[in-house]
Structures are given as C-alpha cells and as structure tokens.
C-alpha cells in the first residue's frame, strides 16, 4: 500500500513538471491573393515643347520633339496596348497657325513617333487633328515595359506659313492617351 501511493505521487509530480516545461503552439493560415492586371501609364517628360526653325525662307517648318516614358503591361493572351494623341486646344492667339482650320492649304501640324520595344510606333508623318485621336504606338499581347518605363517620342513639324502674324508666341495643347488590356 505504501509503496503504491509513493509511486503515484512521483508520477503526478513528473507529469506536472512536464506540463510546465512544454511549449505550447498554435497556427493560422492566411491566403494572400493578388490580381495582376494590365497596366499602362505615360509620363510626358517635355512639359512644353518649343517648335523652332532656323530658316528665314519659309522653306523649313518649325520642329520640336516631345519626350515620353511609357509603362506598359498587356494581357498575356489577347492583350493590347495603344498610345494616341489629340490636339485638345488649338493654337492661340488668333492670327497664327491653326490645326482645325489651317490658314492656307497645306498647312499642318504633323508628327513622326518613335516607340521603343516592345512597342511599335505608328508610321509617320501623321497629321494631328482636333477632332480625332491619332496613333502614336501599339503593343501586342504579353508586352511589358521596364519597371522604370520605356522611352518614346514625338517629333513635331509645323508648317511655317508667311501669313502667320509675327510677334506672338502661339500655343496649343496636345493630350496623349495610353491604355492597355
């Protein structure tokens, strides 16, 4: 009887000590989900592009280049990307060049785009309009730019017409639109 009681007490003590020393743990699991979609963005590096000419004979147009950086990721199977531009505010003040109603036949604001790979530039020169967006570049499916963006540019050409009134600086606004699916 005595021996049996002693054994039970020792066993209980050991069990108690084991409980104190044992580390307890639990777990939980969270599923992180992310939808990676098509992305497109554009930075116009040249906020104001000045068109200039070195000619004094009206033989050479005013020219200038707008620098762009594009960010692009298109869908992996059927995705596409597009970059367009449109003249959203015609030249002002009056008396100078006009995109919508050129003072003389043949006057035009044209551009020739370049778009680095994986984009493809539209073939210039292209006449800019105030009524419709015109192409600058396109991208195919599964196209991706560098994380810091890729380069593109638009080289402008504006007819130098003798009828433009001298003494003013004429300003127009062009809006670029980039999209991806």
């Amino acid at each position, binding site marked *: 009887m005595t021996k049996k009681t002693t054994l039970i007490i020792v066993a209980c003590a050991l069990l108690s000590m084991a409980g104190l020393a044992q*580390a*307890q743990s639990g*777990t939980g*699991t969270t599923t992180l989900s992310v939808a990676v979609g098509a*992305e497109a963005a554009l930075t116009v590096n040249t906020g104001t592009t000045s068109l200039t000419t070195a000619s004094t004979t009206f033989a050479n147009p005013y020219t200038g280049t707008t620098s762009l950086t594009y960010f692009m*990721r298109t869908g992996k199977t059927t995705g596409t990307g597009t970059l367009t531009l449109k003249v959203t505010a015609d030249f002002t003040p009056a008396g100078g060049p006009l995109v919508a109603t050129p003072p003389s036949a043949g006057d035009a604001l044209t551009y020739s785009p370049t778009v680095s790979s994986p984009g493809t530039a539209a073939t210039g020169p292209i006449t800019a309009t105030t009524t419709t967006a015109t192409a600058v570049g396109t991208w195919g499916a599964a196209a991706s730019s560098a994380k810091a963006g890729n380069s593109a540019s638009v080289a402008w050409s504006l007819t130098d017409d003798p009828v433009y009134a001298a003494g003013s600086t004429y300003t127009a606004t062009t809006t670029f639109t980039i999209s991806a699916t």
Partner: protein
Amino acid sequence: MVRGKLALRLTAPWFWLALGSLPAGGGTGTATETLSATLTPVGALTTPSTATLTTSSNTFQPFTASVPVNYQVRTTRTGSGGAITLQVASDFSPTGGPTAASGALTYVCSGANLGTACSGTQTASTTTSTPVLTVPASACTGGGGACSSQNPNSMNLTFTLVDSPVYSTGTYSANVKFTISAM
C-alpha cells in the same frame, strides 16, 4: 475487514491535515480544501482566411494588404516567453507571376498591444520562419492587472508585394502560415 480499514484511515494524521483542522469535540467544525491548478503556457491566434493585395497605381508600384492578427498568450515566469512567426507555406501560383521565393513579398508589423512587434521590413520566406512578435516571460492576455486588458490581443501586418511589368496578368495566391508559441 472493511470496518477495520475505515477506522484506520480516520485516525491517520494525514486525513485531518487534509481537512485542515482537527476535531475539537464540539458541534462545529471547519474544513478547508486546497484547489490546485497547474497553468501551462498557452498560445493561440487567428488570422483572416484571405487577404487581397491591391494597388491603385498603374506604374508598377507595389501591391499592399493589411492583415490583422488576433492572439492569446500566456507565458511562464521563468520561460523564454513567446513568439509569433510566419512562413510562406506555399508560394504564389500559378507560375508567371510574383514569387515569395524571389524576395518579392515583405511585411511590416505594427500595433501590438501585448509583446513587441517585429521591427523594420521583414522579407517573407518559403524556407524559414521570420519574426512577427515576441512576448516576454510572465505575460498573459486579458483580465487586466499583470495581464493585458485586451482579450484577445491584436496587431497588424502590412504586406507589400513587388509589382513587376514582367508578371503575366492573372490572379495569384500564396498561403502564409502563422505560428504562435509560448513557454
């Protein structure tokens, strides 16, 4: 035989010690009983079953998600305390998108109301557990006093996932396993 055994137990000193007093011979007696509980270290936690990483940018800025962690913990006076860690149990799938194995998934801990949240930006790993929270010895959830007043305790993790242009479009999922331990 049975009566003899009973008489022997009632007169044994340990019987009266267990009752807490010896009989005084009158009509009133008291007895005390000792209740004993062995409190073991405990750790438990809950996290949301899913968390969605999002971005408002279209220039490849990172995806982020906030993940609350609720936990209950009790550590011993002499133990090494407790901890919460995490490990990416299964990497993002399907292929073609981000991977935690490449170090694209990081997190920041904040707002722990018991213990100390991990400091700085931690990179989640598929191979090793990384710190989320440390709990000192003699810490406990709830009840106030020496324990925290909150039950459960809570903290927050903000996950950040790199957005790379080379990721194929699509939805990707990974499992993150949180482990809480207490000693």
